């Protein structure tokens, strides 16, 4: 049976999933997270949790607080309140460099390859976080086998790759750090529809590597197609959460997007 939870301005920490039956600490958990920019609260009291091996979508219209949430997770911005825990360790006071070393990484919006570095250099940097002895070289050759176009063009500047090739490069670069939680920020942004679908297929395949994935995405249809669960933000708050099956076609979700995305649902 599926369960759908509505969160109209909820304050106390609870989550849509019936998590009481799970033993031990959650794999990844955000509790009562608030983030402010110059006195303006961009995110209020967000709580969510992600089970190991799941793909979880973080949805919502523009300005809902999705990117703010991601920036707080990877340490690009500081939480003004609340806790972000990965395998029980609090990330909110850590630097980005240390968060990545714990096994959490992000594929940033708009690809953001190092355009003046070669493909091989981009991959090499991706492997820095795993440390010298942990087989970064093996991982690099595995990535080049997985993404054959990168192998062909490994000595070229990343800035000369096409959008789709750059998308493959940033995913391969993120995998180089041997992460256990990968966050994708708007992976379909700026890609042609066919390319966007292929990117999502690739993300879905990553689950077979034992990865846990959080996807922030404007394209609700694409995100729900590969996700297990979704959290929906509106105006900096959690508005809705639940299993994908229950969210698909739910009037509440349509309401939040005010019909803008309803064609895609």
């Amino acid at each position, binding site marked *: 049976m599926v369960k759908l939870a509505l969160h109209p301005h909820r304050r106390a920490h609870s989550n849509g999933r019936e998590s009481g039956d799970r033993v031990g600490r959650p794999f990844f958990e955000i509790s009562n997270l608030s983030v402010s920019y110059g006195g303006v609260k961009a995110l209020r009291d967000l709580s969510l949790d992600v089970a190991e091996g799941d793909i979880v979508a973080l949805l919502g219209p523009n300005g809902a607080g999705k990117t703010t949430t991601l920036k707080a997770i990877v340490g690009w911005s500081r939480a003004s309140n609340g806790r972000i825990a990965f395998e029980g360790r609090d990330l909110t006071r850590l630097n*980005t460099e240390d968060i*990545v070393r714990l096994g959490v990484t992000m594929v940033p919006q708009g690809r953001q390859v190092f355009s*003046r*570095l070669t493909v091989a250099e981009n991959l090499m940097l991706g492997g820095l976080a*795993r440390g010298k002895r942990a087989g970064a070289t093996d991982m690099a050759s595995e990535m080049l086998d997985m993404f054959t176009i990168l192998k062909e063009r490994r000595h070229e500047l990343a800035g000369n790759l096409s959008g789709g090739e750059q998308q493959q490069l940033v995913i391969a670069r993120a995998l180089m*750090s041997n992460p256990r939680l990968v966050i994708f920020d708007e992976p379909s942004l700026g890609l042609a529809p066919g390319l966007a679908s292929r990117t999502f297929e690739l993300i879905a395949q990553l689950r077979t590597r034992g990865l846990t994935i959080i996807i922030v995405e404007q394209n609700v249809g694409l995100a729900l197609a590969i996700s297990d669960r979704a959290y929906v933000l509106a105006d900096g708050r959690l508005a809705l959460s639940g299993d994908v099956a229950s969210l698909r076609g739910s009037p509440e979700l349509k309401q939040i997007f005010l019909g803008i995305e309803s064609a895609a649902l």
Partner: protein
Amino acid sequence: MTNAVQDIVNALGLGGTYALLALGLALVFSILGLINFAYGELMTVTGYILFFALGAGITTPLVIVLAIAGAGAASIAMERVVFRPFRNADATTLLLTSFALSVGLQTLFQTSISANAKGVDLNFIPGVINVGRIRVGGIQLVATATSLVVLVCLGVFLLRTTLGVSIRATAENFDVARLMGIRANRVILASFLVSGLLAGIAGVLWVMQRASVDPLLGAAPVLKAFVAAIVGGLGSLRGVVVAGFLLGFLETFLQTYLPGSVSGYRDAMLWVILIGVLLLRPQGLFAPAAERA
């Protein structure tokens, strides 16, 4: 023929010194968005270390090493003490901070050492070196060779080492570089250290030619290096090196070939040419176009 070779060596020596300084400015700028106007004072620090260490009777090679290392240490100290508290400040604040530091240090040198020039005699290089039948200035030849070797070493460091690649990545995208696990503080420290060592090397070359040090020693060459960095395009390290040499050649050849009646206008002509370059290419000669901004 002899004259032409001599002029070329002079131009390479001067241009190489400008290139080292422009590179030092551009390196820190590319990481932090900071144009360090106190950079000239690192050259001055180098000069005073040479003066005091020679006065203490230390041998010349050791004095030179000490002076260059001192400039590196002073550069790191600038970052830790002055610039780090303003790390996330806007560009104007950083600019004003570096101006204040520059004026403060100049005043400190004037009051604590002397407003007058102090003689520094690094006389281990022959005035004239004969290469076959061609006679060239010894100091100019050393300046040329030194700057070329340093530039090649720096190129290898930036292109071939993990730290060098990390610095280039951080220069391009600070936030994403940290996502790779690159430690921001380590990269910033390295760029200030390298930048300081470059100022130290340029400082030694400069003092060799002038044989003296005064509180304003670094101001003029760093102003020219700053112009070279802008003309080359601050984001392009190759560009600022080429622009440094270009500036050296323009200055040397204007000096040599302008008729005596207008030679007083040398610097004015130099600036007019450079303003012309910037009018045609405001982003700098070699800066990759806007998409890399």
